[in-house]
């Protein structure tokens, strides 16, 4: 089976985010594989081990993302591809990433493509479905179970607390939700082997993509941190007074209604 996993390099969940000059400061920060993508990698490895085939992990971004690809290789993926856009693109949005990834994948005859449900940084959850749409293949998001029998696929997907069982078929793109599996972490022999596994680096030119065609459609107006959480207030007095005070506060102070 020909399996692809789309992964993203993100801030370590333990990192404190600092903003200066309208940008998130990356200096000295630790980066990890987006945790939802780890479920996708794990599932890909398990599917390969059961059905045979090859797992290729793909990411897009800058040179530094090679580290996350190496980690995926150390976990057990077979090959890795970095689409390096460092010199070509200043801004990436869901449109850009999905367009480039789909362009890369279109002639790969992938049977199964896995991605994370969302990235913990941008959190759009759009790249996976957009890629499927562009490739014209089936797509199921937020999956928590995956069974493949020939080209028939049975999936359980998370429905915000409930679950739904779906029957579909390959080729297919799925996005992984927490609970799909318990991602392994690389063993030391895995880390040593990863050094020798192929890691291909491509640029937009290699994919015959014009920068203008994939230019980001999202314009970032401002970047700022959420306001500091203020101490709570306890309203007192008669219940009906409290309700009207609350309503007035929500309208006039918080301005949410």
């Amino acid at each position, binding site marked *: 089976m020909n399996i692809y996993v789309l992964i993203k390099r993100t801030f370590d969940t333990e990192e*404190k985010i600092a903003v200066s000059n309208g940008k998130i400061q990356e200096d000295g920060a630790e980066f990890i594989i987006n945790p939802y993508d780890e479920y996708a990698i794990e599932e890909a490895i398990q599917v390969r081990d059961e059905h045979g085939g090859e797992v290729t992990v793909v990411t897009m971004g800058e040179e530094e993302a090679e580290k996350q690809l*190496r980690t995926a290789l150390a976990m057990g993926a077979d090959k890795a591809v970095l689409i390096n856009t460092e010199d070509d693109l200043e801004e990436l949005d869901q449109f850009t990433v999905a367009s480039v990834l789909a362009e890369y994948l279109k002639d790969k005859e992938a049977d199964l493509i896995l991605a994370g449900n969302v990235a913990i940084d941008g959190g759009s959850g759009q790249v996976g479905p957009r890629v499927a749409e562009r490739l014209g293949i089936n797509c199921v998001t937020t999956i928590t179970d995956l069974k493949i029998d020939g080209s028939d696929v049975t999936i359980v997907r998370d429905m915000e607390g409930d679950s739904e069982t779906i029957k579909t078929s390959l080729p297919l793109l799925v996005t992984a939700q927490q609970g799909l599996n318990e991602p392994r*972490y690389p*063993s*030391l022999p895995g*880390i040593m082997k990863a*050094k020798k596994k192929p890691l291909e680096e491509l640029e937009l030119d290699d994919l015959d993509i014009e920068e203008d065609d994939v230019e980001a459609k999202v314009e970032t107006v401002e970047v700022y941190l959420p306001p500091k959480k203020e101490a709570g207030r306890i309203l007192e007095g008669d219940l009906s007074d409290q309700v009207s005070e609350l309503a007035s506060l929500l309208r006039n102070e918080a301005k949410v209604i």
Partner: protein
Amino acid sequence: MEADTLLYRGGSFLYGPAEADTVFTPEDFTEEHRMIAQTAKRFLEQDVRPQNEVLENQDFGKVKELLQKAGDLGLLGHSVPEAYGGLGLDKISKGLVGEMLGSGGGYSVAHSNHTCIATLPITYFGTEEQKGKYLPKLASGEFLGAYCLTEPNAGSDALAAQTTARLNETGTHYILNGTKMFITNAEFADTFITYAKVDGKAFTAFIVEKDFPGLSLGPEEQKMGIKSSSTRPVIFEDCEVPAENLLGEVGKGHVIALNVLNLGRFNLGSACMGASKYGLGLTLGYVKERRQFGRTIADFGATQEKIASMAMRIYAAESLQYRTAGYLEEALGGLYDAEDQGLIAKRMMEYAAECAVCKVYGSETLDAVADEALQLHGGYGYIKEYGVEQMYRDSRINRIFEGTNEINRLLIPMNLLKAAMKGQVPLPDLVEQAATEMNAPQVEEIGPVSREAEAVKAVRRVFLMSVGLAYETYGDKLGEEQAVLIKLADMAIALYAAESAVLRTEKAVAENGEEREKLKRHLTQALIDELLLSVEMDARQLIQSAVDNPQLGSATAAVTAELSRLQRGGTADTKRKIALAQLEAGRYVS
């Protein structure tokens, strides 16, 4: 390659400077190092830590299970050669695994006991057959190992062992008799590296398997801490050990025992440093939450001062650990497949003084951190569920095993004195040179930590002057003056710690610039501020107890003049900045 070809001679920090670009620092980790560290960390956090309660209840089956899982991950095979089923990784990786597992309490002890002293004797001193038979299993965790050196009447004085070995009449087996004490992993060990005296005289090592007839275990000890590591006596009653299981040569057991301990001490330092970082992290979490007098206790100056002190010690411990790892790698990296046991032994002994510093500084850092961590937790620190209580109990053994800190301290100046006796180090010239320089100090360097670099030189001069004074007083009997030797050791340890931190900071600033390495500068400045005072006190105490009255005044004045010229104001402000950085990050940062 002879020992002479090593770039850095063991123990030479005591009498000569090193250059920043020759030391290995945590900033030099490769991507592979980071990945290895990450795996060890995840194993500890996801597999070991959640089992803590089970482990503390001495469910040794769980310990064994975890060790086997560690084996599957390659965490037992980092120091076993590739040819024998291991990974043959460098000593930096060994240090990183030790550090990352360090906060695992008893599990950490069981783990490093297995990978270090229970496996390394075979790795470096085994025959090809012995390596082929045991190493793949020890690397995978199929076999777990123990190390039997200590006896009821032979602790620090290990060579006084009473366990005997006698070759049987047919020459097929050695017959072992005796009792070994405090044997870690005894409960489930498959192999026991055991020292016994052949014919009651020749101290020799053997590989004993658990099923060899005549081996039995005494009862589990009730320990103060590290409860999840099994500790039992191992009893040999006419225990039959096949002759081919003799390790090394008859009468050469001490070579193995003492050499392997060096790596054990290095590893213990790594583990303690890792545990110290964990302790600081726990404390930072607590002081940011705990409110008294209407503020978090993290706001208080007294808290911040303690936080900064912890971070400074950890920074020094980390710097000296990886500096030593770099030296060990240079000396031993190419020797995984070496046949020349003489060379291996020489190389393992080369950094005995540095390994002793790792052990002493690491274990005392952890004890200091555990103590203040508990203090900052207040009454809750004394309650089991906060975890600090366990850390406090687990920490204490580190100053005792792998050679007590006193034995390790004595070794440091003694090694220097012995090298001087053998004419390997021109000690009298060095002492004289130090005295000359003290009379005419020259501050040449201009750099981000030039005062600190100069302070390192001053500490070295004071150390050498103190050695000179002590030798003048006691002559060849100095070796028997333990109180004096321990003072010298304290200065030597401070010297290695200070120099390692300064060199690391210099290197980091050269690489990343002063602005990005501001915190390292602060850590180094404050560390030096305090070490200057402690070294002055050590030197003055030594002078007071060792030097005759007429000389006392001038010697003391010389020490004070040399060190106090480097004093700097503003320590409190620097320490506050250090503390705020730690608090902001919520974990140890440098």
